[in-house]
């Protein structure tokens, strides 16, 4: 098991906590689906930025969504392994769940996973 973090707004964190990551989610004002779910290992490294930075940036873009928040999920190794690819080796700290690359497994097990919302 490893704790994965996802930086976002409080509103979205609550929604994901309750329903799981939604590849069909469309941001207000946008037209495209989210498609995937980006997370990173709690211990880093953070070559694409920290979850806290993402949370703050997202909250600034969407000021009516309750401010920054970090969703933390404890994910089994086998689900994480299904997301690992040559683009996203675990050594770089990024765990990118995409359709066909771990997202289905994550969503299937979501209700059983230990998770919490942390302050962003």
């Amino acid at each position, binding site marked *: 098991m490893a704790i994965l973090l996802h930086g976002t707004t409080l509103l979205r964190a609550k929604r994901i906590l309750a329903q799981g990551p939604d590849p069909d989610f469309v941001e207000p004002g946008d037209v495209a689906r989210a498609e995937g779910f980006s997370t990173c290992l709690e211990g880093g490294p953070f*070559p694409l*930025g920290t979850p806290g930075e993402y949370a703050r*940036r997202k909250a600034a873009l969407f000021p009516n969504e309750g401010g920054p928040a970090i969703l933390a999920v404890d994910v089994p190794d086998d689900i994480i392994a299904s997301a690992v690819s040559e683009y996203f080796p675990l050594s*770089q700290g990024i765990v990118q769940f995409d359709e066909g690359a771990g997202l289905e497994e994550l969503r299937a097990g979501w209700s059983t996973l230990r998770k919490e919302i942390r302050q962003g």
Partner: protein
Amino acid sequence: MNTTAQITEVLRTALEHPSRGVVGLVDDLLRLCPEQGLRLDGQADRCRISFLTGDSEEATDVPLRQSVFRAILARIAVLCNERTPDSVSPYGGQGELSAGANPPAVFRVSFANTPAVHKLELTTEAVPVEGDRAHEEGPIPMTAKQGKPAIVSAEERELEKFVVHNEDLLALESRIGRFNIFDALGIARVEIRHSNFLAFILDPAESHGQGQLFLKAILMDLLKTAPAGSRPLSPIELDGTDLRGVEVRREWEHIDILITCQQPPFVVAIENKVDAHEHSDQLRRYKEKVRQHHSEDGLLVYLTPPDARDPTDSDWMPYSYADLFCVLTRVLATYRKAIGEDVLVFVDHYLSLIGTRFMNDDKIDELCRRIYTNHRQALELIIERGRPASGVLAEAATVLQEDTRWHVFYQTSKEIFFVPKAWLEWLPELGLDRKGDRRSWIVLCLQLSDERWLGFLVQVRRMEDVTKRREIVEKLIAEGQKFGFKYNKKGQKVTDFYTAVSGRERIIKWAEDNEPDSDTIRAAVKEKLDDIYPKLAGIPPLLEPLLSLTEPAK
């Protein structure tokens, strides 16, 4: 100079087959970004590559997951914010980032990173290069080639990437770099010793204790390979026969291996070519010797690495190390339990050797292709400048390192540039050649000649003040002999770049393939250094009057 097509192809490979994750992928994009700039546009699960000054017809589409593209852009944002905090958002903006060192290459970036739009424009910013390459001699400075900006840092970056986190290189090293007794003994490509080992395992009387096991297996394969008309006996005959009176000879009449058998009577000649090619009609001569002394219908085998040239004499049957590898592998697989452990280790190592050196290995080929694609610039740099110093220069460098009187500025594959350590306090920083140490405008040089000798000379390199440089050069040429500089009968050619102010003095010379031993080299270098050191004390007083009058360059 790379064409846009070449760059596109390398970019495509980098995007489709990243070897160092998304972080390495961004490094690759920065490395490959051409002078005219690069644009990447995300379109569904594809990425369109184009050049900023190119026309749209040159665009190339590469499959790329949207999440990967977005991760690339997120990494770009992090790099921009590392250079200037909070300059861009992960979701888009315009900024600058720097990569590499000494000096870093600077890139201008414009990007958008939202679910609907992901695109990137990248342009390089020229960085002043370290002087021109207009010199007649001396080491190649780390400067730009063909005026391409920022190449100095790019080269360093390339080399760093080549050695750090290069998983392909590690995989390749692990595949070919295992300990091998034959490598350790230096026989990897030495033909004579390959023949010795082959003769050893072929000879039933040898100490491997396996009797005719290896001989019959290899003979069987040779007979199967040979055209029916060339076989001294059939594979069926061999299978049911106990060979009697077998003799395996080395270098009989210069033939690498000659196998003769009394019952059934046959002869097999093996000519082994590892690196060398045939010469002086040798195959025809060997054939005649075999026919004259043994049999008209002996089997003549020409053993080579795969892809080697065919024998010039068609009576010789080509047989490759790949065939030999297969036969020995089969024998080991079948009789492993019956073969003594020591022999097993030897044959295993031999198989490993010919497997990695002489055979086409798809995995090795793939790794090599990937390494070449991803690290082409580093490899070209290494080939150009990384040839190891000869043993002679390496020994000379060691003498200088061990002698605390000297300071080495830098070393190339053919030269070592140094001064007395005491000069470091005195030398003003007037040089242009090495910005890392501008005191290196006057240097002593140990120089390796292509004609197999090590020379010593004194050189004045580029300086800010050309006029004063000329005065210094002329002074040193005129009075250098007082300080142990060799007189140059031909006279010195004075230029404004690199000028030898002494003749080239031979310290040690040797014949081809007969480099002197370590003690001899060290003694010769030490003798020269001991001789020149006290004499050099006169150089600072000679030059100080000229230097003190030197005006700063305008």
